[in-house]
């Protein structure tokens, strides 16, 4: 069980949105984590520096939150390591072929009503729900 957190989640979501709006307003870029991570994997191309800076900020933020307010950021990863590695590779291949993930397609793409992003988001949401159902209710866990 995890606790239902409507207010924290809504507020956190709004901050994610604000980040996306500001990155577009100042740098003219989509705040898609797939493209940003891919951009710092060699061979490096121009624009890797702002991407590395964005990633550094994103990694630093939870550390600062924990430093300032104590153990307030919940984390529980129930997946065995072998499946974590397999799942990570699958996510990487998927988002590279699909040209985006929850942030790029799900937030930035849908916000500008991109048909590609709407289709992509519906597809991965359905696929994730189906996978969780099979793992938890057909296989009985990993």
């Amino acid at each position: 069980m995890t606790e239902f957190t409507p207010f924290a989640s809504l507020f956190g979501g709004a901050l994610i949105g604000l980040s996306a709006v500001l990155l577009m307003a100042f740098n003219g870029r989509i705040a898609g984590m797939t493209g940003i991570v891919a951009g710092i994997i060699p061979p490096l191309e121009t624009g890797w520096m702002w991407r590395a800076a964005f990633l550094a900020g994103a990694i630093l933020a939870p550390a600062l939150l924990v430093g300032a307010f104590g153990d307030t950021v919940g984390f529980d990863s129930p997946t065995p390591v072998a499946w974590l590695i397999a799942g990570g590779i699958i996510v990487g291949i998927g988002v590279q072929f699909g040209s985006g993930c929850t942030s790029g397609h799900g937030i930035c793409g849908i916000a500008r009503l991109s048909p590609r992003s709407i289709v992509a988001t519906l597809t991965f949401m359905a696929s994730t729900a189906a996978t969780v159902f099979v793992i938890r209710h057909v296989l009985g866990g990993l």
Partner: protein
Amino acid sequence: MRKIAFPALFGLLFGTGIAISGMANPAKVLNFFDFAGTWDPSLAFVMAGALAVTAIGYRLVFRRKAPLFEDRFHLPASNRIDANLLGGSALFGIGWGITGFCPGGSIPALGLGEPDALIFVAAMMLGILLARTLRRAAATRVTA
């Protein structure tokens, strides 16, 4: 300099939002998708908050001809809904459903110092590299 310093601030905002919203927590994400079991609807509120702010904010931003630091907005050019988009997205969902980590949730989770986040991100980067190599090889074969 500001072209790099500002994105660091926006990343800080992004990571704070992910951490507060619960998106850095794989158990919470998996529970959102477990309608038949321990359902936690929180993720819907993350999407609602993010989409409301981004949709309204983009509308204001796109009234300008260009962003403040660049001469144009860098927006995806493709409109094609093809096998790569559908297959890639379906595959991403399988990996997300196995692990509870998506790219945007896993990167801030690194800041929590959790080994599982590090293992996931390393595997994900390997996957991105593999797929990129495959796609480039395929593109070269077509044009050659």
